[in-house]
């Protein structure tokens, strides 16, 4: 970049703008000649083979070693991409699993329709609905469905987690509180509230214990009370000649 420190202001700004523009052109050229268009092109290939290979490539990038002086947002981005590709794959398997009962239902319904003909569309639909319902409920309890659902749930959560990591990096960069920060604050608040309420309960219980009236004193007979008073007076009266 040219040295603009000694030039008049307007000309210096003009040169800075020209320098920045040429840098931008070079960056665009680098992108168009980089691996990204290749990645995007491969992923769009029909059949999904490109996706599988890209998924593996992206996975390797995401799991690569971390360098201490290099910002790792790229790794996080690759990790989110890999998780998204995996989610797509698991969704495809799940969709295939949920399609199975419809085929079974259609087969069963066709067999009943051959022997029983309904004049009322509602009755016919009701039969179809009952058969489809049974097949779907049976399918839900199959090992294949439960596995597909489990894998889909895991892939969804993994993607969400990677997405959150990326978001947290950006919010930290912008100086905003992250989700982790807020979770930690609410955790401390919840624990503090528990301690305070436990303390209040204990204090209340102690107070209630203290507020219990003392047991009634046994009644002293009148004669005993009179003797006690006389005895007290004789003790308090000074002995003759003692002053």
């Amino acid at each position, binding site marked *: 970049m040219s040295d603009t420190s000694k030039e008049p202001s307007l000309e210096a700004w003009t040169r800075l703008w020209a320098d920045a523009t040429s840098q931008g052109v070079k960056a665009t050229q680098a992108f168009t000649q980089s691996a990204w268009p290749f990645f995007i092109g491969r992923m769009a290939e029909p059949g999904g083979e490109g996706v599988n290979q890209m998924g593996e490539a992206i996975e390797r990038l995401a799991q690569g070693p971390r360098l201490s002086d290099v910002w790792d947002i790229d790794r996080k981005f690759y990790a989110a991409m890999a998780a998204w590709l995996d989610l797509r794959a698991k969704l495809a398997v799940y969709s295939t699993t949920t399609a199975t009962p419809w085929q079974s239902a259609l087969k069963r319904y066709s067999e009943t329709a051959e022997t029983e003909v309904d*004049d*009322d*569309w*509602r009755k016919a*639909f009701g039969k179809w*609905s*009952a058969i*489809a*319902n*049974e097949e*779907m*409920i*049976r399918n*839900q*309890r199959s090992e294949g469905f*439960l*596995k597909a*659902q*489990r894998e889909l*749930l*895991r892939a969804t*959560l993994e993607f*969400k*987690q990677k997405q*959150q990591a990326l978001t947290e990096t950006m919010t930290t960069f912008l100086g905003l509180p992250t*989700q982790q920060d*807020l*979770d930690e604050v*609410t*955790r401390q608040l*919840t*624990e503090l*509230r*528990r301690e305070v*309420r436990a303390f209040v309960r204990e204090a209340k219980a102690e107070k209630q214990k203290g507020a219990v009236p003392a047991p009634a004193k046994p009644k002293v007979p009148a004669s005993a009370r009179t003797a006690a008073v006389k005895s007290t007076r004789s003790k308090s009266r000074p002995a003759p000649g003692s002053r």
Partner: protein
Amino acid sequence: MSHVDRISKLMQGLTDAAGKVQKGAQLLSNIKDEDVEVGATPKRLVMRRDKVELHRYTPMADQTVGTPMLVCYGLIGRYTMADLQPDRSLVRALLAKGIDLWVIDWGNPSRSERWLSFDDYVNDYLAAAVERMCAETGHDKVTLLGICEGGVFTTCYAALHPDKVRNLVLTITPIDFHADGADKAEHHGFLNIWTRSLDPSDIDKMVDVLGVVPGEFMSSVFSMMTPMRSLTKYNVDLVDVIDDEAKLMNFLRMEKWLADRPHHPGVAGKQWLKELYQENRLFDGTFELDGRTVKLGDLKMPVLNVFALDDHIIPPTCSQALGRKVGTKDYTEIALPGGHVGLFVSSKSQGALSQSISDWLKARDS
């Protein structure tokens, strides 16, 4: 019937349906969300503790049962199911029978409530509500009416604080989370099977990533349990009700309640899904709250256990299991026809549930 006649009948049916839809569209265009009221029985706010509110219903008849009763729903869905509309309301029916009725509303937990546990709900919120009820009414004990997960809350509370509970009424409440296998109905117990198919680490990850068990997530699991009904309720089934204003309003109220799905706080969600659904600790006698074990044998007060025979969400066998462990001799079971929600909202079950509860309470109100 000839082929031509069949086609003619089919066309007539479709034309009738189209006419209904047209009339229904007219009706729908005049209905606003504020016209669809649920949980509208009058009540007043007595106490607020964080997001939790305790309300007391306005009496509708002379009091016939002295001990006040607290309705305790769970964290999945809202208590308004028990007060869906005036002619389908357990709340109204119990008020009409002269019961001093209260309700606890858990509010709308968000990620801020992710750290709340079963311990907090039972030993703090529920305990504070009971304490307040006693202070306001002058009674030293209350009756608890638990619904589903709310029934588990009240069961735990009654076992840990029996000195504060006069009677325990449970409805559609799971006690043995592994008893679904004994229920032969194929469409029952999917929630039990699905939860057990997950690793405990899956549940931990869900809560750690999302902070809560999202209401929408539970909603989608429930929809899966009635697959065809879920697929047809906005088309084929809607044709049956759309041109009848009363039926349409019933449908819309139900939809409004279904749409109200609060999130389930995270830590409590982990306990619900892992310690109860997966590990069955409550029934096994190893479920702990604040370091104390909840023992079903400590339930020595009168217990009424009501369940629905066609409950696909909480199979009846999961509720009935309480009878084998409860400590009281005054234990009554009532099995009613209907499903999990139908027990409260169907027209066929109205009256049966409230009458059973009211008669049972009156016999024990001394």
